[in-house]
């Protein structure tokens, strides 16, 4: 197994308590940062590390930090986005549940770097038990003098709060999250202004994913340059991948960036291959929003190079033959999976979660769901397939926030790569009446199934 920077001590009994975590070298980054470094030096280390946002977009975290308006006389805030609701992604929950202190430590170090006196962890409402774990960890950190007034005898003070959302996917979008945190309806804001200028309570704010903030801990401990040595090219460090679907060993894995996708799926260290000895059909590599790829394109790029688990390699080929690393929700599908049914499930999710603020997403997501429902249940027409492509195209890029894109990409990519299957549903309505149609008789298309 590769190097582990976040989950190194995950198996140590009692790691969720302050004593054990501290004994394993925890809170060293806080001591190092507060006592020997200036806030700008910490930011510099994060920049050097090449750390990219782990929430999905992959924007360089150090750059995001440097956009923060430091000249403003308003208070600055750090908000941790723990509203992890993407279907297929569950890495943040695992991290917060098992090593809550890693996130608390990362919050303290990052808040120090940004000069935030108050910081928030916005956690999704369904994770109520995780919220209790985090609150316990925060109480312990207060008791040990790592939070509150004059941390470790320095003149830096920080208050950290956990705030539960009410269970809306849209509140994972950073400006909707801030609206919700302010107590308003969770509608995304129009940008600009960006949160770095006017975020929470119209003050400069940085919003980062749980894993991004946790990664600040090894960056400060090791130094940014050392951290940047892990990984490949512009994809540095390690990444938590939540693997699910038709694999032998589903779960959360910490991988070094640059691991070949084939090894990740078939190696016994990771997913352990496809269950029941079946063949691989398709993979959604980064949570439900990213384009789905058929087996031959996920293992190798269109140019025939092996595909690696990095931002660049997965995106190789653009949206024609590539996908995105996204949030690391790795969903594997075997030959019995019905792509249409899977897509309908995704579309139903986006329809349910659209905030309803802007027209293309509000109306388009519902429309796509209804058309997909029709096709999947054997009531579709051939023209519906092109209709779906057209609707997806008209949503994409025309909405306020990326939820519209997230709803459109899976539809466009599934039809691009699995058009035959949609046509099959229209041609043989009797055969798809049974919801488990492809389990009984797998859909065979010579180009889409590979045996490794």
């Amino acid at each position, binding site marked *: 197994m590769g190097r582990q920077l976040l989950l190194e001590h995950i198996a140590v009994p009692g790691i969720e308590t302050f004593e054990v975590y501290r004994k394993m070298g925890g809170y060293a980054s806080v001591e190092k940062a507060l006592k020997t470094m200036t806030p700008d030096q910490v930011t510099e280390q994060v920049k050097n590390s090449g750390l990219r946002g782990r929430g999905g977009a992959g924007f360089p975290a150090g750059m995001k930090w440097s956009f923060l308006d430091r000249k403003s006389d308003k208070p600055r805030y750090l908000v941790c986005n723990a509203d992890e609701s993407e279907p297929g992604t569950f890495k943040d929950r695992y991290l917060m549940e098992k090593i809550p202190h890693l996130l608390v430590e990362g919050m303290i170090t990052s808040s120090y770097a940004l000069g935030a006196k108050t910081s928030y962890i916005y956690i999704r409402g369904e994770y109520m038990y995780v919220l209790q774990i985090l609150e316990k960890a925060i109480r312990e950190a207060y008791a040990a003098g790592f939070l509150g007034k004059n941390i470790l005898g320095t003149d830096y003070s920080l208050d950290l709060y956990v705030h539960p959302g009410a269970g809306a996917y849209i509140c994972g979008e950073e400006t909707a999250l801030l609206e919700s945190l302010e107590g308003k309806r969770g509608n995304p804001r129009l940008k600009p202004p960006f949160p770095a200028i006017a975020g929470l309570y119209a003050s400069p704010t940085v919003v980062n994913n749980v894993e991004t903030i946790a990664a600040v801990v090894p960056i400060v401990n090791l130094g940014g340059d050392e951290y940047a040595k892990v990984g490949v090219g512009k994809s540095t460090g390690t990444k938590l991948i939540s693997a699910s679907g038709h694999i032998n060993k589903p779960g959360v894995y910490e991988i070094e960036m640059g691991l070949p996708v084939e090894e990740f799926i078939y190696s016994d260290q990771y997913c352990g291959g496809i269950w029941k000895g079946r063949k691989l059909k398709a993979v959604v590599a980064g949570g439900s929003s990213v384009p789905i790829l058929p087996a031959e394109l996920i293992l190798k790029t269109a140019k025939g190079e092996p595909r690696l688990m990095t931002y660049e390699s997965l995106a190789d080929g653009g949206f024609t033959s590539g996908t995105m690393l996204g949030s690391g929700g790795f969903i594997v599908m075997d030959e019995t999976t019905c792509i249409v049914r899977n897509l309908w499930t995704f579309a139903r999710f986006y329809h349910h979660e659209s905030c*309803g603020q802007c027209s293309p997403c509000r109306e388009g997501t519902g429309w796509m769901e209804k058309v997909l429902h*029709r096709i999947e249940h054997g009531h579709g027409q051939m023209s519906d397939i092109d209709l779906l492509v057209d609707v997806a195209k008209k949503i994409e890029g025309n909405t306020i926030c990326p939820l519209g894109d997230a709803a459109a990409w899976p539809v466009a990519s599934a039809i691009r790569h699995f058009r035959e299957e949609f046509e099959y549903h229209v041609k043989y309505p009797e055969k798809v009446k049974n919801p488990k149609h492809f389990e009984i008789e797998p859909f065979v298309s010579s180009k889409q199934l590979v045996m490794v």
Partner: protein
Amino acid sequence: MAKVTIDGIEIEVADGTTILNAARQLGGASVPPAMCYYSSLKGSGGKCRVCLVKVAQGSSKDPRPIPKLVASCSTPVADGMVVQNLTSPEVLEARKGVVEFLLINHPLDCPVCDQAGECDLQNLAYEHGASTTRYEEERRTFEKIDIGDKIKLHMTRCILCYRCTMVANQLTDNRVHGVLNRGDASEISTYIEKAVDNDFSGNMIDVCPVGALTDKTFRFKSRVWFTKPMDAHRSCTKCSGKTVLWMKDNEVLRVTARKDQYGEVKEFICNECRYDHKNAADWTIEGPRHIDRHSVIAQNHYEKTDLLTLKKEIERQIEFQKGKPLPLALDEKK
């Protein structure tokens, strides 16, 4: 000051002006349509996406184009910006898409809708929409509800522009209604059977671009094009008292605030002027309201043109017929 080019026409506007307002200063066909933006309501805009335009050049400093289409109502101009509205096929295609989205859950029963004739969505669909629908599924429907004794809410027709909730927030003391639920199940509603009851609530009706909020005192009394709109005023302690009376003979059927050429009210009126003075004797009538001649309301138009002006206009047209350049129209001379 910033120089922007919209559809090839250059204009200089103050810094911070939005693309939409810059286009409105230019006037003419290049003004993007707007269904949710309302200049006098803070925070409006950005939601309906019909005003999307293409920015072909970001500014003179950074000439790169903006990769996505932007909402012109909420994007400020930059010096040297080049904007394409009608000249970009991409914009027209996207706009057609948005109109289609707005119509999939909107009933297509204009003939029985009270807003017909003064409906922004009707105009928009006429200009940018397709003639047929591709939507076969069931449409979202709601029961009609009364919010207050004077206003009828028919959520089925609503396009969720959020304008009316902003009226409630910004014109009145208490926020009494807002948006419930999410996605296409969102609805405008009051807080658990509470009536909307304050002096300026009637303005919700004026800002509604469609027939979702209608005046119960006027509802189904007359088609709007059979009425004669007259500018009128009275002295009022609560508002400016400047209104439009919608009359049939000498009967006042409805009182509304005055809308400008983009359908926006600049001076909101109080409920007393709107509902309690439906008597022509209460008002000083200034004269006919100018209605754009393209509007269906102008069907029954009656602005009197005196014969001298008419004669001059005919002479002007005759000159033009002879092959001379068209002389300025009378109202364009100054």
